[in-house]
Each structure stands twice: as structure tokens, then as C-alpha cells.
């Protein structure tokens, strides 16, 4: 992601540290190369995105579990025009919804190094973790190759 010089409230990437969010562990883990989410310790539901309270059983004790970093492409697009501020200079870029391997869960992210014509439903994708200039982290998909 290109350098963002916008006020915080025009910056889509959330603040990731303990001072700002109760799910900072997600970002701490991502920095270490792990894609994780929360699992409810009472009912066992695996939740996406990570939560502090379980929407199913209302329990508030969660444990962190690792998610697969590979999966199959389910749906995709390539943004040509109309990207929001802070992302205009990145266009064209692709976005895809990927069904994780061995986990009934889909995760949406940008797809790097692929145009619309390079993409097909069912293609094998893998996670790529990126670091922003200010040290924040995020994730994208790339072809598994």
C-alpha cells in the first residue's frame, strides 16, 4: 500500500496497537507471519473477523487460533477506476474472495500481481503479508504458483 498522508479518519487501515484495539493480537501475529482469528472458548465458534464477544453465545473469552494461509479463489474483480483516496495511485488492482483450505471460511483481500484476465474461479492462492511504511501490517493474496 502506498504511503498514506491523510488524516486518520480518511485512512482505511485501522490503528493496530494495544492503545487502539482489543484485537491487537491479530496484528502482532500477522507481523510474525501468522494469520489468526478468535475462537469462542464457550461454544467453539471460529469467528471472522476476530472478535472480543461471541455473537453466537455472548461469551467474552476467546482464544487465538491459526488459520490456513492457502485456499481457492471464489470470486474476483479488478478495480480500474473509482478507488478511494489513498488507493487511487494503486489502481489497477485486483481483489478476491478466497475460500480457505480445510476451513469453512472465506477471506477477502487484494490480489497482487494479477489482472482480471489472469484469474479464474478455483485457482490456488496463498497469503502474502505486507508492511506499510509506518510499520502497520496487512495481508493480500497471490497466486500459489
Amino acid at each position, binding site marked *: 500500500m502506498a504511503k498514506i498522508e491523510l488524516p486518520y479518519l*480518511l485512512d*482505511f*487501515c*485501522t490503528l493496530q496497537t494495544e492503545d487502539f484495539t482489543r484485537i491487537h493480537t491479530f496484528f502482532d501475529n500477522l507481523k510474525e507471519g501468522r494469520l489468526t482469528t478468535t475462537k469462542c472458548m464457550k461454544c467453539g465458534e471460529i469467528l*471472522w*473477523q476476530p472478535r472480543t464477544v461471541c455473537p453466537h453465545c455472548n461469551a467474552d473469552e476467546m482464544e487465538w487460533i491459526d488459520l490456513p494461509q492457502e485456499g481457492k479463489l*471464489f*470470486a*474476483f*474483480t*479488478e*478495480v*480500474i*477506476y*473509482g*478507488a*478511494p*483516496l*489513498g*488507493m*487511487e495511485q*494503486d*489502481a489497477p*488492482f485486483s*481483489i478476491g*474472495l478466497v*475460500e480457505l483450505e480445510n476451513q*469453512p*471460511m*472465506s*477471506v*477477502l*483481500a*487484494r490480489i497482487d500481481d494479477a489482472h*482480471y484476465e489472469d484469474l479464474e*474461479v478455483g485457482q490456488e492462492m496463498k497469503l502474502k503479508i505486507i508492511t506499510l511504511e509506518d510499520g502497520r501490517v*496487512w495481508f493480500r493474496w497471490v497466486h500459489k504458483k
Partner: protein
Amino acid sequence: MNGIEYHIIEIIYGSSNDRRKGGIEVRKVAIVRGGLAKFGVRKATYKELAQEAGNAVFDDIPNLDKKDVDSLFLGSAGPDRFAFQCYPAPLVAEQVGVQPRNLIMRTELACASGQAAMRAAYASIAAGLSDIALVMGVEKMNTPNLAEAQTTMAAVMDREWDGVNGMSAPPFFAMIMQRHMYEYGTTREQIAKVSVKNHDNSASNPFAQFQQRFTIDDVIKSVEISKPIRLLDCSGITDGAAGIVMTTEEKAKEFTDTPVYIEGLGQCNMGSLVSNLPSLTTWESLKVAFRNALDMAGKGIMDMSFAEVHDCFTISEIVIYEDSGMCEKGQGGKHIEDGNPYVGGKLPVNTHGGLLGTGHPLGATSIAQTVEVIEQFRGEVPEERYVGGEWALTHNLSGNANVHSVLVMRRGG
């Protein structure tokens, strides 16, 4: 997706209808008349658009004294960011010259903000909290930098997990188009016909943003926005305003010989995050909203004379044909190819030109659909898109198609 169990149909459907049929006495609600400010890229501010629509409404109801308007419901999706204006309801009240003393509120439900205002007015009038309500929708979306509007639109999605990936309305509906073509073999040409049809209808609508006709070739060769969606698959980024007056059945007769009664309401939300939706190509919450609204009115979808639905993108109208029951699942492309949703077809859809043709000033959109229903019932539209009839419905989706809202209306008088 994501293994989330939604309470599809039975639970939500049953409970809301049980409530309505539970013998609670409510007042019948009528729409008197309405008016519009011209939709487009306007050389006018948010407040000026509100004045223009207010002017049109009160011009059309000459014997309504503004002092008798006791409530204001303002549908406005994002003036906080589009126009850097929070708290717009009192501001609009002052602009149009009303002093609400029973209820005043702004409703926000993204693209369905206007219908949310109508539903709030309905509830208030039915319950006896308001007698005469002004219901307005105002949106000023265009600024010198189009990316500003796109930023607000992307923040309609979950900003932290969807918007951050560049997800916004065009890429979301692009994924739906991609999946619909993949799953059902829907063709690019079939989808383009929605744009051609709706622009044909808006060509004779003086309030529409676009009064130009296009061919299938124009649509499928227009500028790429978010593949496979192209410019003519998209509704506009639009400035606009609209207003209607809603009141009781008895009072409506003082102002019009052709009141429009709201006979059915249905609304349903399932999920928020894109990856947690029940499906991309089948809109379960739409099915609930349509069934609840039509059931309340005691009608079926094909009993409608026409339908004004939320064609924010061409593919949306295709999915709406299917999930509302106008045709079988997966047959939306064939449905338009066979001529069904045209004026003169089995069930004309978007006679005013839809969002594709008239533009989509979010909060004003639903109110403009309602103005079309009023004018169709009164026979005030040009012959080439006149349908008339006794029954019609309006539908709005909002956000990433996770909320659907439907109103069923009947011509009175």
C-alpha cells in the same frame, strides 16, 4: 459463506407477520403527492437541493399549510462526509420552512436511507404519533474530486476489513456479476440490456440525470470501472433531492383525489462483512423482504402493475428478477431477453429509468421511486412509459446487498 447460520425465511418471516396480524389497530397510511429537484451533477449545494425539492412538494399540494406539517423524516446517507454536514434534519426543516413538533429525524441506511425515512414516517403515522409528515431525501455527492465520493462509498462497507482492500460498491457488484456469469452462464449482452432498457425509460424523464439512449454495444464497450463492470453498468454519482407528504387515509382526502396507500412493508438484514454474507448471487434477505411486504398486502409479485427496484448496477436488477420471484433462479438474463421487464411486458421494471437512468442520490432515490409510483397512478407520465394500474412496489437494497427494503403500494381514490 463462512459457515454462518442465518435464520433463513422461517423465523424472521414468521415473527414479523405474526406481529402485524396480531390484531393491533393501526391507522392506514397514505402518500399525498411528491416533488423532485433535478438529479445530476448540480451547480447547487445540499441546502439548495433541499429547497428545490421542498418547493416542488408544496407547489403540488397547494391547500397544504406548512404549519400543519408536524413531522419531518429526512433520508440522507452521508452528508457528514459527502457535504461535510452533520445533523442535517433541522437544517432541512429551516430550508423548506417547516417546524416539526411531533417527530424529526434523519434516517441513514446507505442507499436505502430514503425508504428508511418513509418507513419511519409510516410507523409514526400508523401509531398516531404524527399526522402530517414531510418525508425528504437529500444527497449532494459531487465535489471537485470524485475520489472523495468514492471514499465515502467505500466506508459504507466495513471500513477496517472490506474498505481497506479497496472494496466499494463497483468492485462488490463486479464480483457478483463475475460469479453470476460463472454460475448461471448469464451473458454480458443479457446484463447490458438492463442498462439499455432503463436509459430508454429515463430518456423521457425530465428529472433524470441521463436522458440519452444507448445500445448494447455502447454498454459493453464503455469505460471499464471494476471488471467486468463498465461505466454504463453503474448508476450515477448524483446530486439530488426529493420529497413526499405522508398522512392518514382521512387527511389525505383533503389534499388529493388519488392517494397512494402503503399496503405492505418488508425489510431484512443478513450480515455485514462481504465474506460473511449467505451468498453473493442469491440474496436471501431480499426474499424475506419481498415475501413479508407482499404477504402483508395479500398480493403476489406478479399482481404488481409495475416495480421500481434498486438497479444500482445492471447485475443487481438481474438478481432482483430472480430472487423476487419474477423468474426462476439463474434465469434473470433470459427474463429480460424475453421482454418481460419492459413497458408492455409481463411486469415492467423501473419505468422511470431506474437508478441507472435517473441517477442515484442515495437518500433521495427511494423518494424518487415513490414519486414515479404516484405519477404512474395519476397517469402523469409520458405515453411511452405509461403503465398505470392499481398496485406497485418499490425496492431498495443497501450496502453490500445485506439489507433489502420493500414497500407495496395501492392506488386509492
